[in-house]
């Protein structure tokens, strides 16, 4: 049985320490610029912080992966290329890339640097994965959250020894990753290009009579009643009027939680489990990493899964197993 790595998010050096201390095998981080898909205000790492973070992780047997997973602006690849160069120079264990040109650059310039394909590249079949592996030596592919467990198992059989990584907890993109224009349509900024969906600079919350209205770039996208759990102000989680009804058209505020599915995912031959949430605080990182550390260890040691309630940190106070079970089919 493969021992899957637990890949944990860190938006700050303090979160990196929390993740390592809570049992992460790897921590993934990004630089403080638009080269990564969590380019949020006040978040992410300077070069010096990355160097210190790598030293902290390596001293405790953990790895650090650097996400450089947005698509370089046409004609201006320098910022993305220097992010790759600096990751290699500072001793990152791998870089997580999405853009095919940047992958080519990394493979040619740093032949010893381990390459992972970001979920933003949306490679979801053996042919696409095979192309990245053969052409650029990509070692691992993060699968988009659109596949069922049997589909993942079939991909693993077809692409071995290329490894796959799947998301096990956190916020969900309902679109095939890297192919969503909702945020860009409303705000002019997108996760693919600017590293941020529904940027905070365009978000306003308005309180009225105990309720709250969330607005994105002047569009009202949701209203929550008194004490009704709220969600992220992304358009895919908006509540809209259509056909005389107000409802969530794409997705309700909810978080992916596959703790109960870990035995199936391990059986499917997945090499790494990824926890979403570089934008979340240390308390979230510690709680989720501990839960999944216990979960993975329990499965590998043949013990029953721990019963851990993560409701209090989920979006909208709700959880889903997403496409892994595709209950809506």
């Amino acid at each position, binding site marked *: 049985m493969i021992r899957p790595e637990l890949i944990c998010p860190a938006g700050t050096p*303090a979160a990196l320490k929390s993740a390592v201390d809570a049992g992460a095998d790897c921590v993934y981080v990004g630089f403080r610029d638009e080269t990564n898909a969590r380019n*949020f205000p*006040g978040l992410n790492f300077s070069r010096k912080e990355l160097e210190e973070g790598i030293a902290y992780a390596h001293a405790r047997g953990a790895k650090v992966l650097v996400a450089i997973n947005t698509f370089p602006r046409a004609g201006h690849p320098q910022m993305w290329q220097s992010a790759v160069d600096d990751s290699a120079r500072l001793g990152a264990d791998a870089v997580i890339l999405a853009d095919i040109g940047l992958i080519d650059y990394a493979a040619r310039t740093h032949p010893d640097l381990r390459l992972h394909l970001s979920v933003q590249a949306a490679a979801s079949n053996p042919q696409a994965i095979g192309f990245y592996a053969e052409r650029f030596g990509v070692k691992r592919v993060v699968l988009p959250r659109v596949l069922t467990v049997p589909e993942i198992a079939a991909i693993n059989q077809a692409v071995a020894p290329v490894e796959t990584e799947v998301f096990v907890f956190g916020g969900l993109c309902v679109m095939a990753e890297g192919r969503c224009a909702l945020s860009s349509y409303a705000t002019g900024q997108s996760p693919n290009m600017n590293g941020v969906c529904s940027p905070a600079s365009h978000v*306003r*919350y308005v*309180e009225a009579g105990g309720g709250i209205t969330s607005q994105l770039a002047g569009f009202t996208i949701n209203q929550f009643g008194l004490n009704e759990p709220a969600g992220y102000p992304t358009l895919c989680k908006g509540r809209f009027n259509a056909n005389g009804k107000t409802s969530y058209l794409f997705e309700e505020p909810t978080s992916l939680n596959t703790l109960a599915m870990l035995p199936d995912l391990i059986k499917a031959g997945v090499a790494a489990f990824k926890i979403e949430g570089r934008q979340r*605080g240390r*308390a979230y990182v510690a709680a989720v990493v501990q839960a999944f550390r216990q979960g993975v260890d329990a499965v590998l040691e043949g013990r029953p899964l721990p019963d851990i309630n993560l409701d209090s940190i989920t979006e909208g106070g709700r959880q889903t197993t997403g496409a892994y079970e595709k209950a809506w089919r």
Partner: protein
Amino acid sequence: MMEGPHRAGQAKPMIPPFSPVLLLGLALRPVRPALLQPVFDHMLKVVRSQHPDILERLEAYGERSVCIDPIDLPFALILEPDPVQPRLTVRRFVDADEVHATIRGPLETLIALAEGRMDGDALFFSRQLVVEGDTEVVVALRNAIDGAGIDLVADLTAALGPLAQPARRAAGAVLDLVSSLRGSVETVRQSFIAPALQGAASRDARLAELEAEIKALRKASRRGGPA
């Protein structure tokens, strides 16, 4: 939209939990904010020297002021995160249009957030924290503070040198006292609301009876029986 600008420090739009902090807030009502200002000056100085990275992360937002409004205390704070001359001012009232953004919640929640013991998004999802105005500076502040690894008691006592350890012990004793008070306060709260709960329980029971009666009547009328 809130009806008119809200004045932080007064008529809080969230209902504060009944807690030792709320009682402390009532006790602090007569105290002039100016008397508390030195405490916050010292706090800012200490946090700034122990965690210079906070202001570094906030560099791009130095000109945006944030009101931090503990709903259970009779005052609010204005943080101006200027990298060279940051300020933390305590005020009885803050008008919403005086600041770029406001973060509002119970004091214990705000402290837990500052110390990274609670996740800001989770607090927002569960509506324990309210954010108004410029969301960007609030997110930046939240990330900068969470990333700093603040421990208020340890940070504030660190500068005391040999006295740090006894001061930490004293602070620990005060926190223990607060948490034991929380139990007593909860008992008081329960006895206050017990009559209301009993009333609500009997109303619930009566409602359930009425619902059952209506269901039975509907069934009977569908069968053509007496309506």
